[in-house]
């Protein structure tokens, strides 16, 4: 369908909305001298707070006094010296790593595979599975080294190539209570799912060879640097941006890449004329459920310990926000389309998981509820209405609509609802009267959006004009399964 100028304009504005903010940010930062102290304070603690997965959560323990006003018994600081490796923290982090791996295979693989047409089911599964393999090896070879070692402001050093220095008894300063092997593995599972999420925007039309190369390049050129900025000791973390488990590093990042990729690939053939309804939503429900279940490794695991209350609070917030978002999306559909679709419920749940990701560990249950309801509505509008109205990008399975929009929404709401009594490293706007945190969050969102957008464009442009990124029309019509993998789902 032809595109009216007004629509293009609106499209640009959508982008500007996110972009503009971050330009404003620094300026605003200057003005907010009043919160200098707070800002300083938060910076001080930030290397742990914003550390997300990298956060040593000791502050939470020391928060006990603050919270001890609560009409319930409280526990004093944990029985462990937080700097010693212990079996409990290690047990939880091994479990968390396994849970996050399960999010990608089979979770994400099924979530996406259930939404495509029969002829592309196996190819969609192959994307998540293949990405997992490629990224695992690259992470071991150099990825971990770039993201989580050294003291660079922008990228780590290369001492950890092949993980050579990582002995049986090594411990990372970023996770003092577990072996470094476990920390490396935990971070690896994050590095796996982030690029894999992008597949949602590429569905039904990308060459498998190009896909795997894209995953590899994107991991090293986009994910690793940004992970270093925020969690690996880089500039954003140091500045005090709060991202507990990856609202920007993981979700806004993957979502932005998805948007760019969808634009560069072009629309699926037959979009609007052919029936593109999901072939077997049962797969999507299994996938969404495993994403939900695994997400506790993602969020509660990002406490990187289980010796105090932080992991538990993150888990509670995650569960509440997810359910609220699913209900919100369901409600919108029930009112507008008259029927609550199963696809809507699971999409809402995922949107909730996305938005609570940066906030879990910083917000209380009520904050989680607010974020959940909000993101359910926002992502519904973005994925169902705005996308169709703009109509110039084919974000097939709503990677941008859910992960991009949801991640940005969550990062911003974290600035609003973060609460010092939940995490002593956080000073939010609403409860702790620290407007400056909003500046930092917007900076974080803007930096991720632009860096990721530009780099993704470059990577795909190179691939497009070398090996090509899209399959031929015949292949697309006949199906990717038989043509790319020589197999089909029978019957």
């Amino acid at each position, binding site marked *: 369908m032809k595109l009216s100028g007004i629509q293009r304009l609106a499209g640009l504005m959508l982008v500007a909305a996110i972009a503009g903010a971050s330009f404003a940010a620094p300026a605003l930062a200057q003005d907010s001298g009043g919160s200098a102290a707070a800002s300083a304070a938060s910076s001080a603690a930030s290397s742990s707070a914003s550390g997300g997965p990298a956060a040593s959560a000791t502050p939470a323990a020391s928060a006990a006094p603050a919270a001890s006003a609560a009409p319930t018994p409280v526990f004093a600081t944990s029985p462990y010296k937080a700097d010693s490796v212990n079996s409990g923290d290690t047990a939880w982090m091994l479990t968390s790593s396994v849970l996050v791996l399960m999010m990608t295979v089979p979770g994400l693989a099924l979530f996406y595979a259930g939404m495509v047409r029969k002829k592309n089911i196996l190819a969609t599964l192959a994307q998540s599975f293949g990405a997992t393999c490629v990224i695992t090896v690259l992470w071991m070879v150099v990825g971990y080294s770039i993201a989580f070692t050294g003291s660079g402001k922008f990228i780590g050093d290369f001492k950890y190539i092949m993980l050579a220095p990582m002995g049986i008894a090594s411990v990372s300063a970023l996770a003092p209570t577990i072996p470094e092997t476990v920390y490396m593995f935990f971070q690896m599972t994050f590095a796996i799912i982030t690029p894999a999420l992008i597949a949602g925007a590429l569905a039904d039309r990308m060459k498998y060879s190009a896909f795997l190369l894209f995953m590899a390049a994107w991991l090293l050129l986009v994910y690793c640097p940004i992970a270093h900025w925020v969690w690996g000791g880089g500039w954003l973390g140091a500045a005090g941006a709060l991202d507990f488990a990856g609202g920007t590093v993981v979700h806004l990042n993957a979502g932005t890449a998805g948007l760019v990729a969808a634009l560069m690939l072009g629309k699926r053939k037959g979009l609007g004329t052919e029936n593109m309804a999901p072939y077997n939503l049962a797969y999507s429900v299994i996938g969404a459920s495993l994403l939900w279940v695994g997400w506790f490794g993602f969020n509660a695991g990002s406490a990187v310990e289980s010796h105090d209350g932080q992991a538990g609070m993150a888990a509670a917030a995650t569960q509440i926000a997810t359910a609220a978002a699913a209900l919100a999306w369901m409600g919108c559909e029930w009112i507008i*389309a008259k029927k609550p679709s199963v*696809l809507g419920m699971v999409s809402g749940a995922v949107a909730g998981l996305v938005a609570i990701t940066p906030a879990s560990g910083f917000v209380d249950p009520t904050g989680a509820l607010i974020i959940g309801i909000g993101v359910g509505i926002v992502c519904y509008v973005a994925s*169902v209405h705005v996308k*169709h109205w703009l109509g110039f990008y084919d974000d097939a399975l709503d990677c941008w609509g859910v992960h991009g929009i949801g991640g940005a929404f969550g990062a911003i709401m974290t600035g609003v609802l973060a609460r010092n009594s939940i995490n002593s490293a956080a000073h939010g706007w609403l409860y702790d009267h620290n407007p400056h945190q909003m500046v930092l969050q917007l900076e974080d969102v803007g930096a991720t959006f632009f860096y990721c957008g530009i780099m993704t464009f470059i990577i795909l442009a190179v691939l497009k004009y070398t090996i090509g990124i899209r399959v031929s029309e015949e292949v697309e019509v006949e199906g990717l399964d038989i043509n790319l993998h020589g197999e089909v789902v029978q019957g």
Partner: protein
Amino acid sequence: MKLIMAIVKPFKLDEVREALGNAGVEGLTISEVKGYGRQKGQTEIYRGAEYTVNFVPKVQLEVVVDDGGVAKAIEAIKAAAGTGKIGDGKIFVLNVEDAVRIRTGETGSAAI
């Protein structure tokens, strides 16, 4: 011999089969088909957007009977498959020149 080809609503299948049995039909073959006609398909929802499916699930029955049995068979199908609602379906009659029972090699009416 004639081939009676009937297209009916799926949930009427069992009734139709019984009716034909009572009408003396001993064998028949069915297949799942999709129909296009006055009756429009259901509206599916995908990402909030409603769209109507053009084709409606139907069951097609193929029954070969002696010329004598045609009228009875048609009556049976009409009675059992009718709901009075749009989409009840159609019955077509074609001529069959020969029939063979593979097992025995019998031909003609004996083979039905």
